[in-house]
């Protein structure tokens, strides 16, 4: 059941990424806004990798869990945008 709940949240993340792509396709300004958001997310993602030990202490989770979250987040984004762009 734990796998089921993780899978559901993963799918929710993928759908959210597709939704972001859909918003970007509405208007050129929306596209820029989404690009800015993605750039900010990329910076945050990179910083999280650099500061993983201090961040794990701050969030009270293990470093392995934090790294899994970061990889999962990237996978969600890639799958969601990939599905939106390829369909």
């Amino acid at each position: 059941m734990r796998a089921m709940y993780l899978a559901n949240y993963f799918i929710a993340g993928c759908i959210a990424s597709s939704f972001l792509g859909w918003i970007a396709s509405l208007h050129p300004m929306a596209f820029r806004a989404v690009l800015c958001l993605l750039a900010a997310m990329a910076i945050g993602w990179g910083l999280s990798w650099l500061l993983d030990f201090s961040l794990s202490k701050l969030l009270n989770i293990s470093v392995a869990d934090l790294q899994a979250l970061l990889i999962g987040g990237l996978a969600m984004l890639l799958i969601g945008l990939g599905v939106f762009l390829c369909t």
Partner: protein
Amino acid sequence: MHLKLFVLSASSVVLWLAPLAALDKKLDIHKALQGVSLTAAIACAVSAGNIARELSEQGEIEVIKKRAITADVVDEISTSAYISQQQRQQEAELILTSPGVDVEESLKVLEAIYSNDLQDYTSASEHPDYPIYLEVCKSREAGKSTTWIVENILKMGGRKFSEGKVKLQALLNQFEEEGK
């Protein structure tokens, strides 16, 4: 609950993929439909995730409960075995240390007790009056009078004395017959 979870999971995937694959992105109405369907898909996936998390927590609680019950049972068994062993030891010590009793006879009695079936043994020794009987035996061997035993061991002095005497006799009859 499980059915709801599976329906929500499946519908979230369908609502995510089907409009993107089937509808045209250039038409406004199709685009709006895609947006609505993606929003619904996110809602379905999140609620399915919440239900699955609840079920997983309940499962973990059940596992902990089962472990606690097993530990309780094991503890109870080991405690009863320990008490039984201690009781046997006390009885053996009482028989061996009581004055005026032949050691060989006592050993034979002990051998007889330990070679008996466990059920037979526990029926007498687990009787609630058995410790009182042992106390009475010890006092009689120490030379105490019947009056003293009734008043100090059975705690039935004064008005209850005659009742206590009857109880003492019944106690002696009961356990001496079982001893034979």
